[in-house]
């Protein structure tokens, strides 16, 4: 077994434990590369049967148009069940509030919609594509990560997790977040996408795009959600996206990489980390931990 085989076997084992230990699991799907890998691993784990869980997409309203159409095609090709819940509806219902200013983000608001959806359907486990190598708070995650009845993470008192014996026992109202890709690196994900010939949104490949440079020097794609103040530079550049989140928090990277091999080479020699391009992580030093405590995945 090579390293990808070992990672695949570990993840498939985890997915099958979810299927066996929970009554109503769900798979969180963003349309990004990591959740696409999760779908392929679900096929490996459960075909020729159906997935033992539906796929849930939290539509922030700030998604790239392309991610949404890609999402719909992918789920249709797999003939699996998809649930979509919208941050817009949470805002209309007064459950969440939009940010104001020139660059509003809905990153934080999506935790409200996610927790509401979990309650609405009674999900007891939510599978996510987060990886330990992405971010310092995620580096602390278990495979089965316990969440209290409010959906919050208590990082200072996590359950021990030994070998591959996963403890999925929870009380009514509590939930588990499950991270089958914990041990995958960004490099592993791209190597697997190549090996499995996975289709991915073209946002990941080099293209021309109108972008805006903000006063702090960071870049965002231009979109209808932002209103750059005078002084912020709007320019067309050759870019790609290294992670795909919302248009309002995902910075493009300047890149000529237009094939999987070029992307893999670019990552191998990268001087900056993957989530260095995520504005949602840069808001404070503990931005990810804070959001995870609130129920973000």
């Amino acid at each position, binding site marked *: *077994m*090579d*390293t990808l*085989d*070992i990672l*695949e*076997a*570990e993840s*498939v*084992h985890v997915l*099958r*434990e979810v*299927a*066996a230990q929970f009554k109503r699991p769900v798979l969180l799907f963003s349309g990004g590369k990591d959740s696409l890998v999760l779908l392929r691993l679900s*096929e*490996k*784990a*459960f*075909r*020729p*049967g*159906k997935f033992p869980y539906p796929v849930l997409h939290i539509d922030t309203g700030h998604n790239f148009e392309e991610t949404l159409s890609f999402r719909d095609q992918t789920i249709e090709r797999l003939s699996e069940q998809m649930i979509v819940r919208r941050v817009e509806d949470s805002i209309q219902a007064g459950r969440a509030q939009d940010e104001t200013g020139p660059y509003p983000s809905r990153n934080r608001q999506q935790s409200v919609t996610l927790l509401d959806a979990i309650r609405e359907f009674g999900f007891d486990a939510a599978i996510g594509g987060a990886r*330990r*190598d992405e*971010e*310092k*708070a995620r*580096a*602390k995650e*278990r495979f089965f990560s316990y969440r209290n009845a409010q959906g919050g993470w208590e*990082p*200072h008192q*996590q*359950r*021990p*997790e*030994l*070998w*591959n*014996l996963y*403890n999925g*026992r*929870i*009380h009514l109202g509590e939930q588990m977040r499950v991270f089958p890709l*914990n*041990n995958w*690196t960004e*490099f592993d994900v791209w190597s697997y996408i190549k090996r499995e010939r996975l289709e991915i949104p073209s946002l990941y490949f080099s293209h021309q795009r109108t972008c805006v440079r903000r006063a702090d020097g960071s870049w965002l794609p231009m979109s209808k959600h932002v209103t750059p103040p005078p002084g912020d530079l709007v320019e067309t550049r050759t870019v790609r996206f290294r992670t795909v989140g919302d248009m309002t928090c995902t910075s493009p990277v300047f890149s000529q990489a237009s094939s999987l091999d070029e992307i893999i080479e670019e990552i191998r020699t*990268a*001087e*900056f*980390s993957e989530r*260095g391009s995520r504005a949602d992580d840069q808001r404070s*030093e*503990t931005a990810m*931990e804070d959001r995870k405590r609130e129920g973000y995945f």
Partner: protein
Amino acid sequence: MDQLRFMTAGHVDDGKSTLIGRLFLDHGKILKDQLQTIERASRNQGKSETNLALFTDGLKAEREKGITIDVAYRYFSTQQRKFIIADAPGHYEYTRNMVTAASQVDAAVILVDATRGMAEQTRRHAWLIHWLGVRNIVFALNKMDLLDYSEKVFREREKEIIDWIKPIAHGLDFTLMPIAALKGDNILRPSPDLNWYTGKTLDQWLHETPARSFPAAKYPTRLSIQGAVSTIGDSENYTGTLASGVLTIGDELHVAQDDRIIQVQGIWKSGQKTDQVQAGEAIQISLSNGEKLSRGQLLEEPEYPTKKSNRWLVEFCAMTDDSMPMDTAFFARHFTSETPASFECIDETLDLRTLQWAPTEHATLTSPQIGRGVLSFASPITADAFGSIPGAGRMILIRESDHATAVAVLLKEALPDTIS
């Protein structure tokens, strides 16, 4: 390229997190934005030098207190090898998180503060790592810079460790080396200040120590069923991860729990039909003659059966902060099966100074107590003793009341059944 999963362990403040920061920095694997973040945080702490420990201490509480609370996992690769690193906490009260890390690795770097020698917590870590079956261990005597790189002190510490470890040294591949993690001495490069030392650098050791190799064909086949996947009509495939041995189409296997012999008709791995699979692979199988299986059933090679009993002699490490009475009700998880269980007796605890088991009168369990006793199960457990087959004899006890993962257990010996 192969992959080594290793951990750092040792007493609090002996330099575990600093060592990992140093290893990444010297390999050029701390990326620009990560380094900026660490430098900014170091300044916020009022430090003039970059605090490398901040590279792995990712939680707010960890940065505030300057300690590691839970395991941080870090990933990097060189031309020769991929590494998964578990940076474990040193504090006594977080021993359970160290145990979590130790259960996942092939090798361990145990840091010892050379200015002080082995602390009790260092002994606890070293013993638990060995107990969990990690065979490749290096004792890195750190902070040699504070001792003017003295060979004399190093030799004293070396003797102290070798004398202490003797009772458990059989089968261990352990070595000792001097380092100074803060300065980078003997991490990637040999240090001119340690010219009396002619052994490996830590980086060399990490590259040369044997990586995970899944148990080969010589071990008996064990497959614990995870679940079923429906196929065409009303037939089913069964899923599981092959724990040991090999499995070939046509093999006859014994169902340990109900004494049936079943025959494997088809095997799939990674979505592909295949003729043979080996330990470590996550597979599906179909059975001849419409035989059925359910979750938790253990398939075994008929010539090499498991032991079966509702009473097992066990060794354990308790992992809850509160103290549990001996009659605490647990769910015992062994492979994919779960069985109600409780302790019949707790006979002995480990003396970390002498590494001898001593009789105990304690009838309670509390973290991080290490003991020996008898576990009694509601229905018989079919298992192999820990150490007899790679991966065998591992168990966790989940407390029934609050579902805490409460005790780490190694099954040592099947005892005669009680008369029911």
